[in-house]
């Protein structure tokens, strides 16, 4: 296992390096730089701005310089927000996005798995139809529509929840629901279909034949195998949701990282684009690794050392 993890960590580092390099090249290939604005400035001033951020140096120099700083954990200064570094942006934005994302992940597991179980155990009955109906709605309605509806009714009409600013527990409710809807629906569908698969398998039948009560068969024997697809889905979901949703953050004015990510691209804020991409890919590869380790816990047949 240790050997496996070491191997994976190395491949993760290579993946991240590749992501960073490709992003670096793509970003510079797109027309328009961070300091090219509609208001044209005299050439001598433009020259100074470029010199200040080393944009006048050859691309390979900028590349090696960036990675030199990166190895020290320094993502560089933001080109857009003067006096703030990309590390600052992550330190400010990530906790907010991660808290909100964390709540949403918990919500989607807390509701998604039980719904999936109810649905599977009552296959074809009204409970199943009802849950699947909700799940279909959850998957098809985009989060911004749900967010707008929630905002309109629960905030503007009834005034139960705040519509702007950030900070108190009340602020989490609406965005977390909007963010959790799709994953909840997805998790319940995954749980349902994989549980249906598992309960038809021989070992479950054997367990039932031995006279073990249904509840124990489902919760102790079947469910453990049935959640494997959910865990697979969980890796990228957690990484994606923790780094923030642009749309939700914009609608609810949440000072998170998702907004910074999208805005950095339109602003050609090179260091922020790179920094956030690398951070994002770090989370993604870490969670994928974590998921792979979790497989062993849930399914003894999986061996990591192969």
């Amino acid at each position, binding site marked *: 296992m240790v050997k496996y993890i070491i191997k994976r960590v190395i491949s993760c580092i290579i993946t991240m390096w590749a992501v960073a390099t490709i992003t670096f090249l793509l970003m510079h290939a797109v027309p328009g730089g961070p300091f090219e604005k*509609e208001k044209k400035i005299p050439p001598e001033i433009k020259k100074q701005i470029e010199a200040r951020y080393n944009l006048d140096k050859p691309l390979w120099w900028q590349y090696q310089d960036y990675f030199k700083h990166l190895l020290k954990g320094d993502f560089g200064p933001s080109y857009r*927000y003067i006096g703030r570094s990309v590390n600052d942006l992550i330190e400010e934005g990530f906790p907010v996005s991660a808290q909100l994302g964390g709540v949403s992940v918990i919500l989607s597991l807390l509701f998604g798995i039980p719904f999936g179980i109810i649905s599977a155990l009552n296959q074809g009955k009204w409970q199943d139809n009802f849950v699947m109906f909700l799940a279909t709605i959850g998957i098809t309605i985009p989060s911004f529509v749900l967010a707008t509806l929630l905002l309109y009714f629960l905030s503007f009409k009834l005034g139960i929840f705040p519509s702007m600013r950030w900070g108190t527990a009340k602020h989490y409710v609406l965005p977390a629901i909007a963010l959790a809807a799709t994953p909840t629906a997805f998790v319940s569908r995954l749980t349902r279909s994989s549980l249906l698969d598992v309960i038809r398998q021989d070992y479950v039948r054997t367990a039932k034949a031995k006279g073990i009560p249904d509840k124990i068969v489902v919760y102790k024997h079947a469910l453990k195998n049935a959640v494997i697809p959910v865990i697979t889905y969980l890796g990228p979901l957690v990484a994606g949701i923790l780094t923030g949703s642009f749309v939700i953050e*914009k609608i609810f004015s949440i000072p998170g990282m998702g907004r910074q990510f999208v805005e950095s691209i339109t602003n050609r804020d090179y260091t922020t684009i790179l920094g956030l991409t690398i951070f994002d890919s770090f989370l993604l590869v870490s969670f994928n690794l974590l998921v792979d380790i979790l497989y062993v816990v849930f399914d003894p047949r999986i061996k990591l050392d192969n």
Partner: protein
Amino acid sequence: MKRKKLFICLTLILTIALATTLFAGCGNKSASNANQTLIYNLGTDSETIDPALNEAVDGATVIVNAFEGLTRIGDDNNVKPGVAEKWEISSDGTIYTFYLRKDAKWSDGKPVTAKDFEFAWKRALDPKLAASYAFFLTDNIKNAQEYYKGEAQWEDVGIKVKDDYTIEVTLKVPTAFFLQLVAMPIYMPLRQDALEKGGEQWTQSGETYIGNGPFKMVKWTHNDSMEWIKNENYWDAKNVKLSKMTWVMVNEASSALPSWEKGEIDIIESVPPAEAPRLIKEKKLQIIPEIGTYYLYFNTKKAPLNDVRVRKALALAINRQSIKEAVLKTGQIAAYAQVPYGIKESDGKTDFREKAGDLFKEDVNLAKQLLAEAGFPDGKGFPEMTYLYNTNESHKKIAEMIQDMWKKNLGINIKLANQEWKVFQKTRQNGQFDIARGGWIADYVDPMTFLDMFMSDNSFNDGKYTNAQYDALLKEAKVTIDLAKRDQLMHDAEKIIIDEMGICPIYFYVSNMCIQPWIKGVYKTPLATVYFDHAYVDESVKK
């Protein structure tokens, strides 16, 4: 068993991690209930609030409330004394002597002196700072450009501190709007010790963000809010009524408007266009002239757009009123000239635009006739051209309407193409377009800013319009001391460019504001910066 332990461990770690991050964010924000307070939506997190580095309107609003220049823009749009209580201008219009008031103080009580201005201006001219708006100094002040390039010493620059309360500025050429320029953020004084203490982050904390304006910024929570208190040391503090302000940063207009209607925010500036007609009808939306023009660039180097008759035909065949009614719903004004409303002539009273009036009229028949004369009767044989705009819903709607009008009125087909903003700018600068949208919002209130950008050698002139007479008139206007004559020269130049449709004006911008009825005295300039120094809460209305 081992696996079970590992599983439990992992679950625990995950739960703890999520729980700690969750509760870390649950701190309560207490609100005080002092009466003279308001909540304003700044709309966005400022890129910078450093007076030398700011280029944005939101940043300027922060700066004009936290700082004060030698002059300031008053609620009637005219220049008022700021830190300078009076000034003298030499007879040739190139030397300005400013006399500073002795009671001007920084927010920590120290006096504001001429040295603070010198420090700020020298910093703005430091090539290492790389301030893009440094050209407001290099273009105007004697030897400033040479100093910036390293070709002159600081002693040679036309900025002289005579004593603690006198500063003398020598200009390259007489500049009629210089008193306006010194009210701009880049000309504001700075406190050397605060900047040295705060380093690159001096703007980030209220401790080092020391200003000399009516208010003091005490806390900046990025992407969320800014907290302000009254600056008790401001020289005119007795006339500042607000004791506290909170500026929030809700950038989605559709979220901000309901919050305003619920009374959670006192002032918002942008509203969703779909809601605007209702708000105007209910008298909730204020329309404030903003000094900006939306226009089309014709690529004058490309046939058939190099033909004046073709350009005129295209310009005359657009129905601007119907664009205004269908797309622009927040009070914009159809433009029949390049210089917008809201700019005063040298007498300080006459509006430049009102005096000259409209410079052309839409006329479909004349447009058809001109097009026929140019060799394209009923649009026959007219090459297929592309109208380029940057990706945006309202630019798209305008483009579609114009495309339709040209098709119906002139029988010509135009393709539409859109590009992402930065790509679009590059394409337009490189002249790789036939027709492209453009827009310009002024940095200072003077007709020149709308005219000199289309001089032959100006880097802004993406349509490559050239007219020797136009250039000559503006060159003369730039150096003339007789201000009435200067106005006339600019009127003449504007007539030329509009007569030849060197650019094709579509509409004049406006800015908006929704203010709760109990908030009085908030002032928004035509440059869209918002001043709060005379704002107050009218308790009688609130009850």
